[in-house]
């Protein structure tokens, strides 16, 4: 880690010294992306227009200042003039900026009007922000799923993980289950939140809309070319705000249709960059959108390990989702599943060793009063949350909750012996 720091530092200073201004030297473009939606092209155009206007004004203003700094110096023996008013000039430099601003305002207003026109879309996706993951709900296709930071990034980003971020593919830019959209279609986004304010942002779409609990904002995108587009949550939403990226996979309408079919069939099958080509793990996974629909349920990670499905829109599906779990519900399966769910969701605050984190006000699970206290209270707390403890009820399925609660009550040296059944959770909801 230290060596790495020094190496980076050296590289940077060299680069900086050599060419601060040449884009080539940097890992990123120094300018706003042109992007792949009408909105983003418009944003880029307005940005450049405003930029060059400012450069122009800057050249004049700074030029004149530098001139008088050079030629009107006392040390150069310049005697001060005594003028201190000139209606002509004062009016001029009030009018001219005003005109410039009007020139700026017109295209901006036009662009804004277009952005606000969310009418007659080809399809609609509801996006819900959670602490700290996104839920994508394909309303007319009747399925939805969560999308959270990819596991390897999450591990590497733990304090002093010792893992060098450079070694992680798409560090902090990958999710387990990206959003998938078709190209060339007007897609209406309905953006809202379940807890605090989040903001859904993809630079290449110039699409940034706040997710506000209790309200649903509308936006739209029309992606021009297939590809993987990465963004992030841009509204401070708590401890892991920096760790809830947005990944959107845009593919042709046909591929998209195949994906939808797979989704409906699998019920819990996702494109997952990490599991797509397991042998490639550890190296950046860039893949052709065409490959996406080969991703059958089998190749996808087991549902519990990745983010679980939300209780699907129709109750019928909810049944089917929990049915297989119910059949073989033993302490062993529950504990195994519970550990996965715990590490995925709870460990970040309650710590992998269940010791809790006083700094966060996250109580200890090990020997904790709630996990060793009455079961009902424990279930209620996990379902509905309290203070900074999130309400997991609307984020996890019954069987995941049953499993994790079982786990908490029988791991870390707790042994209440309780085996919680998904039915109990369902009842407690």
């Amino acid at each position, binding site marked *: 880690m230290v060596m790495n720091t020094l190496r980076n530092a050296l590289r940077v200073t060299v680069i900086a010294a050599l060419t601060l201004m040449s884009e080539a030297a940097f890992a990123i473009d120094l300018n706003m992306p042109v992007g792949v939606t009408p909105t983003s092209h418009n944003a880029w155009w307005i940005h450049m227009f405003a930029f060059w206007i400012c450069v122009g004004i800057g050249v004049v203003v700074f030029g004149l200042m530098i001139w008088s700094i050079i030629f009107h110096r006392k040390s150069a023996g310049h005697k001060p003039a005594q003028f201190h008013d000139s209606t002509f000039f004062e009016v001029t430099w009030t009018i001219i900026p005003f005109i410039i601003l009007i020139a700026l305002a017109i295209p901006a207003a036009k662009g804004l009007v277009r952005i606000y026109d969310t009418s007659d879309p080809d399809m609609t996706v509801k996006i819900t922000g959670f602490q700290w993951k996104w839920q994508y709900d394909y309303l007319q296709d009747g399925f939805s799923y969560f999308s959270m930071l990819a596991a390897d990034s999450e591990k590497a980003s733990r304090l002093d993980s010792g893992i060098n971020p450079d070694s992680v593919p798409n560090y902090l830019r990958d999710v387990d289950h990206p959003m998938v959209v078709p190209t060339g279609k007007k897609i209406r986004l309905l953006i809202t939140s379940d807890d605090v304010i989040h903001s859904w942002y993809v630079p290449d779409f110039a699409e940034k809309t706040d997710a506000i609990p209790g*309200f*649903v904002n*509308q936006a739209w995108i029309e992606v021009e070319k297939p590809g993987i587009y990465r963004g992030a949550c841009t509204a401070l939403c708590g401890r892991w705000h920096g760790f809830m990226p947005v990944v959107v996979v845009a593919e042709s309408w046909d591929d998209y249709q195949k994906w939808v079919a797979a989704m409906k069939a699998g019920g819990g099958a996702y494109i997952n960059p990490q599991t797509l080509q397991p042998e490639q793990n550890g190296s950046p996974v860039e893949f052709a959108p065409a490959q996406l629909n080969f991703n059958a349920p089998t190749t996808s990670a087991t549902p519990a390990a990745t983010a679980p499905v939300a209780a699907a829109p129709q109750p019928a599906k909810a049944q089917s989702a929990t049915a297989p779990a119910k059949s073989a519900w033993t302490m062993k399966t529950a504990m195994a599943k519970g550990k996965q769910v715990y590490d995925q969701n709870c460990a970040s605050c309650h710590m992998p060793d269940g010791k809790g984190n006083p700094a966060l006000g996250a109580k200890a699970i090990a020997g904790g009063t709630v996990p060793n206290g009455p079961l009902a209270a424990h279930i209620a707390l996990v379902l509905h949350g309290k203070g900074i403890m999130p309400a997991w009820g609307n984020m996890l399925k019954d069987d995941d909750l049953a499993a994790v609660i079982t786990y908490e009550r029988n791991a870390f040296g707790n042994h209440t012996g309780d085996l919680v059944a998904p039915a109990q959770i369902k009842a407690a909801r």
Partner: protein
Amino acid sequence: MSAEAQASNHYYVPHGTQWPIIGSIGLFITMFGAGTWLEGMAFGKYLFVIGLLVVLFMMFGWFGTVIRESEGGSYNAQVDRSFRWGMSWFIFSEVMFFGAFFGALFFARVFVQPWLGGSSNALFTNLLVWKGYEPAWPSNGPANIGGDFEAMKATGIAALNTLILLTSGLTVTIAHWGLKEGNRKKLCWFLFFTVLLGFSFVILQAHEYIDAYTKQNLTLGSGIYGSTFFMLTGFHGLHVTIGAIMLTVILLRSLKGHFKPDHHFAFEAVSWYWHFVDVVWLGLYIFVYWL
């Protein structure tokens, strides 16, 4: 008299004062106490009370000093003007404080309600989150927070209180005339009436609150209506109480023979404050009770 003469053409600059630091410490204890209290620590409320006592002590001390100096004649017309500027801008800041809450009320009624009902660009807010919610006022929101309640009426106590405050505004003005005419009897009596009216307003409002909680199921927790109603009227009630107490002090000072027909800033300051409280109430009556 000599003090008078000397004051008339000198700007009075006091030397050293212990009151501010005492006030700061008092405020600190009060707020630290309030914080710990809200966070469920028992000792908090004691700290809170102690802090308040310190602040009270500071006020007595500070105002006492100022009164002595004033009666001692060390304040000339210019010092008096500084006080007036100070008081008027303080009242302006109070207006802005109430403005924040009136603004909240306005926003909630005029914008948030229709949005929850799906108007403007909030169609899906209604379709997906608050299905079937009909905008309304009074409202405790689509989740019917705090349960059904009976809203306040513009008639009854509210109307009576309006009458009371308006009258008290009049009586305090008459008292002022009395003071200017050097008619102390008039001054004291009408001040007395004002104080009386002030406190009866407070008592009536207390009655109104008790009804709200016990009979109408209208509480701070009754959604946005309860929130705005109690915060606005509550802060106003607090100001009326403070104003009434200040009037009482002024009354006592008048009885002790303080103030001169041409030199009575404290009296005017309090009467300004009273008129301000009066005007805020009119706003409340119109926007909270009536419309």
